[in-house]
């Protein structure tokens, strides 16, 4: 098969991870659509697949496919960076199957068992009922084992092979990433304590360790796709690490405004998180600047050709730089000051930010990595767009942007009516839900969700077929 183009087992394993990630991505979108339909038509699947079940699968699948694609990305770039086959890749393959099997079981249990009695067995075997990290405790332990194996492989390979700046950053980052999962693995009767530690997983993942991971991927992408100079790219990477961790770690304070934690978090959360957009701006500028510079050098040689060796992947990397800045940076900043967050906290506004941030910062670049996988697997030297890749890119990006706009407008109605005017009671909540902007927003979100999903179908078609297209340069 086409696999023969891959010299390294590590890269083959990466393609498995990418494939499974894409399947779970599809499941994520499907259950997102179910939940979005329920907003518009509450009787849809009522007491069959309730909103809570659909949403749990939607957001847990989101986290899972991203973790799979992240592991895959590391297995993909390791041989290029270290110059050697990944140490322990055999165990890596075993762990892949264990991980995938565990996830399938977890999702089936969510879907068919749904809820349990109010005791610890539910938490151990059905789900934990905590957003994003709903996986039951048994699966937590499975995930820890898999993560340990993954980190061990990364370390052994980094130590044995050439340890580039990118690999050094990844080694530091992935151990923090895995370690943080542990802070979400205990039960407490105290809801404030519960949420205090829950944010250690969620916030310190998406606004610290995952962002640094994206910085490392972007650095790798710039070197491999447009031939940017490693020394410059790695300098930017270190600057980004300093800024991301410098603002993101204490920026966690923006989740400690209202959960029972002391008032001093207002100040810490406000100011540190207000700085979080800065590294995202820096990353955006960096990617565009390097692209312009490399293309300029090429043009100066009088060669009228693009420096990009993988058009679809690079498009997704650019969209990442932009989407990260827009979704996390701008939309995050919108509601990060306590004066604003007092009213927007936990409204559709949050959902608008959650969508554009997760999509812009992570979905984009990980789809880009999938394209790098297709390119390598098929031995393509220069990979070009196809009709499907263009449809996929524009419909997915346009769809999510459209959902975000719709949610933002619904969010205004939500927090102004139900919070600012009505003071957040049951009655106030439903007053907000019946605002015209809100209702229209929810319809538009569904429409744009369908657009996103059709884009996803194009994406799958393209990933499966573009490798055989004749217009790439082999």
């Amino acid at each position: 098969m086409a696999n023969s183009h891959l010299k390294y087992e590590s890269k083959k394993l990466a393609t498995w991870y990418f494939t499974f990630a894409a399947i779970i991505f599809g499941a994520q979108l499907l259950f997102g659509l179910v939940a979005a339909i329920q907003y518009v038509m509450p009787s849809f699947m009522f007491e069959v697949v309730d909103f809570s079940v659909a949403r749990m699968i939607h957001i847990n699948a989101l986290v899972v496919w991203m973790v799979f694609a992240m592991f895959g990305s590391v297995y993909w770039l390791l041989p290029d960076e270290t110059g050697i086959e990944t140490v322990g890749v055999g165990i890596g393959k075993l762990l892949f199957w264990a991980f995938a099997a565990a996830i399938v079981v977890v999702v089936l249990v969510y879907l068919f068992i749904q809820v349990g009695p109010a005791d610890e067995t539910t938490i151990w075997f059905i789900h934990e009922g905590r957003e994003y990290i709903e996986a039951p405790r048994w699966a937590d332990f499975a995930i820890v084992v898999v993560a340990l194996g993954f980190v061990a492989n990364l370390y052994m390979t980094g130590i044995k092979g050439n340890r580039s700046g990118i690999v050094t950053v990844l080694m530091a980052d992935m151990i923090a990433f895995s370690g943080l999962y542990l802070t979400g693995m205990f039960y407490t009767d105290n809801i404030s304590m519960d949420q205090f530690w829950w944010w250690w997983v969620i916030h310190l993942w998406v606004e610290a360790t995952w962002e640094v991971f994206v910085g490392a991927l972007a650095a790798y992408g710039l070197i491999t796709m447009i031939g940017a100079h490693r020394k410059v790219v790695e300098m930017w990477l270190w600057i980004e690490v300093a800024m991301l961790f410098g603002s993101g770690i204490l920026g966690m304070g923006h989740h400690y405004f209202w959960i029972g934690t002391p008032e001093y978090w207002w100040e810490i959360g406000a100011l540190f998180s207000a700085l979080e957009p800065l590294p995202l701006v820096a990353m955006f500028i960096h990617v565009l600047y390097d692209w312009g510079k490399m293309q300029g050098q090429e043009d100066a040689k009088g060669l009228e050709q693009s420096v990009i060796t993988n058009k679809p992947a690079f498009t997704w990397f650019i969209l990442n730089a932009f989407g990260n800045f827009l979704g996390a940076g701008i939309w995050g900043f919108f509601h990060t000051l306590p004066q604003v967050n007092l009213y927007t906290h936990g409204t559709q506004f949050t959902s608008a930010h959650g969508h554009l941030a997760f999509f812009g910062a992570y979905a984009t670049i990980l789809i880009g990595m999938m394209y790098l996988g297709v390119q390598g697997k098929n031995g393509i030297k220069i990979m070009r767009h196809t009709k499907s890749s263009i449809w996929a890119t524009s419909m997915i990006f346009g769809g999510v942007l459209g959902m975000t706009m719709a949610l933002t407008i619904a969010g205004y109605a939500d927090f102004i009516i139900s919070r600012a005017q009505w003071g957040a009671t049951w009655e106030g909540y439903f007053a907000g839900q019946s605002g015209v902007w809100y209702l229209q927003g929810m319809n538009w979100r569904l429409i744009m969700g369908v657009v996103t999903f059709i884009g996803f179908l194009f994406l799958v078609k393209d990933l499966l077929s573009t490798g055989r297209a004749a217009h790439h340069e082999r």
Partner: protein
Amino acid sequence: MAKKSVWSDNRFWQRSAGWVTGVASVLLMWLTFDTIPQITLGTDADLENGVTKRVPGPTVINYKITYEMDKKRHHEVPVIGGANAEGKSSFQEKEKFFGRDDWSEEEARALLRLGKLGSQAKNCMNCHTLLGNGAYYAPDLTKAWLDPAWGPNGPMQAMTGKNTKEEAMAEFLQFPSQYPTHARMMPNLGITAEEAKGLVAFLKHMSSIDTNGFPRNFGKIEGAVHGK
């Protein structure tokens, strides 16, 4: 030869990144050590002795809870057992919870535990927000216990035909789709009578947590502007 600038030197940035990350992490841990004792569950003795806790002990279910503007802090805070002359919790006024106001520490703790486990087992957070975190498909539960709708003259209590807030809430939780308030209904989650009791205790306890004034003006404004 041009002198190399420190600003474009990888080692400088690598060391800076290490330093910044290290200090931020240490500060976070320091802050965590400061915060954890402040959000640890209080005890029955605290309530008896009039000690205000951010997160009161489970026996807070024996007390009357209200949500009042604090003049010094400029936002609302939970007031437990009625207010004293300065407007702070006086821990005096009790309130019957399922017919009793003498729940012991062990009993109240067990009830809270049942409720908290129940909130996770039934996946409340994937429709509602708790302390403002969760999903946006249903009302925020942070101060649900204090919602006028469940009070003596509120529509929810009347709908269930019960005489107390806690019984009305427990009834609704067990048979939610029998008491629809809107086209969007809460589904039946197989909540037993005992679990419902625990969940109501959990909600009452949550309403006593000092959330720095979130949500603002809760239950104070009844429809200043119509939401259309």
